[in-house]
């Protein structure tokens, strides 16, 4: 808790996010942007891995995963700023902590699926295990989004 108390007391980023005109709005807008890129692309790529939109070659997914990581980076950055403003409250909020766990698990699924689809030969099928990970990933992202939204209410 010592670190979080210190973080929450910093002029920058914590106080800047809490009380400047641009702080909170700019970070929350970036967070929505990064979410759309990371989660939006991940959901579509996971559906493709499950067999939807079969005309899209699996080999093309690697570059979209690359783009998705840019969204993840934007949200790691903006999320850290937002966290600093209320660090000691967030850390004891089970909805927020569940969301964070799910986001990290979602990132792990993307880290697993990106090389898995890059390796598959043209025309070859993906393994059942890879498809199962994509199915789980969809559930993880959907619940993460809902939990993230509900964080505002607790």
């Amino acid at each position, binding site marked *: 808790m010592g670190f979080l108390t210190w973080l929450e007391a910093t002029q920058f980023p914590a106080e800047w996010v809490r009380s400047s005109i641009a702080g*909170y*709005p700019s970070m*929350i*807008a970036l967070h*929505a*942007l990064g*979410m*759309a*890129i990371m*989660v*939006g*692309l*991940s*959901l*579509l790529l996971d559906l493709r891995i499950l067999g939807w*939109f079969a*005309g*899209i*070659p699996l*080999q*093309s997914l690697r*570059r*979209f995963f690359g*783009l998705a990581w840019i969204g993840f980076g934007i949200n790691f950055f903006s999320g850290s700023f937002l966290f600093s403003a209320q660090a000691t409250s967030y850390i004891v909020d089970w909805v927020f902590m569940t969301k964070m766990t799910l986001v990290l698990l979602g990132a792990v699924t993307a880290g697993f699926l990106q090389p898995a689809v890059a390796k598959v030969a043209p025309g070859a099928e993906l393994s059942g295990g890879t498809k199962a990970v994509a199915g789980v990933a969809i559930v993880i*992202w*959907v619940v993460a*989004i*809902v939990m*993230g*939204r*509900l964080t505002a*209410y607790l």
Partner: protein
Amino acid sequence: MLDSLMDWLVSTPINGLVLNYAWSWPTLESLHFLALCTLMGSLMIMDLRLIGFNRIIPLQAVHSLMPVAIVSFAINLITGLGFIFGDPHTYFANWAFWAKMLLVVLAGLNFLLYFTKVEPTILKLGPNEPTPMLAKAVGSLSLIFWFGVLSFGRLLPYLGTGGG
């Protein structure tokens, strides 16, 4: 005219449905966020391909994502109307809301341009063939408009002076 529209919106049973239950607003928001993700995800893949990114994808195949975009937009239209029925005074008094709506209309007109002028030409193209200039322009505008919609939507409570 706007006043009588607002009076009507708050007099409907939808207004009560959105405001009188603690779970209504967060449920609409969660759906709005989920569908914005699938809308932006499908648009990014389609528009970037129109622009020329990831050319190994056949244009006919990328087109198969269109139903995802349309259903996602429909969900956001319905949930968005829920917010407006619930609290029209706050939204209508907020300039960022009107900026967002203007961008939705521009994105719609851009889609019409895609549907009438771009789609008929690109569906005939073979794999790895470059897309025409108009396709690149329409794809770029689509991304600009929709990311604008997203930004104004998220900034709505901080930009406008509508209170609430």
